């Protein structure tokens, strides 16, 4: 008989996704030049709103 998939058997999220140990992964250096923004276009925003049926229910227009 197949063993039940109990909560105990399930790997934790960090294990499943291969996250780094807290002590090693806490600092990651990123050059200031590597940080650049991606402009989200009006077209993309409009599409997202229409896709969610939410274009008339904005918090801020």
């Amino acid at each position, binding site marked *: 008989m197949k063993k039940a998939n109990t909560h105990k058997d399930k790997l934790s999220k*960090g294990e499943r996704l291969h*996250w780094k140990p807290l002590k090693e992964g806490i600092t990651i250096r990123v*050059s200031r030049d590597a*940080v650049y923004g991606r402009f989200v276009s009006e077209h993309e925003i409009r599409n997202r709103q229409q896709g*969610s049926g*939410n274009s008339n229910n904005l*918090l*801020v227009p």
Partner: protein
Amino acid sequence: MTFDYPGYPLKFIQRDWCRDSSDHISTYIYKFYSPITTYHYIVRAEYHKHDVFAIKFYCKKDRKSEYKYSKIVNRGDLGNIIMSCAKVIPLLLGDYPRASFSFAASRSIDSSNNTIEDAPDTQRFRMYKYMIPIKFGFRTFNHIAYDIISSYLLHNRNSESNQSDIENMFKNSYTNLYSLTL
């Protein structure tokens, strides 16, 4: 997929003034309660030079943890919690109509095995990238996503500061955004 959660009412707690010489001027603090998770949450809107707010939130039960912004509560109700935090923006725009807003999505920590999520494109950031364009339009803000540091900027079109002024202010104020320490 829709994102149609009403969120919960925000209660204003206080405004804390920042007395150091940094570009951080003051912090507006709000709280709300989720009857689903049965926890209170704290929302901090940190007001900076260049008329820009950094929005942060955490579960009140984690307030004494140095990782309070990274902890996973794991009791659901995410849509309403995120919407409750987002409601602070129209409130603040009433007093600061030219303000811009930024969000740095924390890296999650799995406390069961002491591991931490990678810094670029965190799961919280993917949620923000999905939700923000649905609830905030392009007439008031330009939307800018910074995948490598999991951050998002709503740059007010009427702001007197340009995008690079705000980016440089954050780069100089929060060096840990770039070394990505928590």
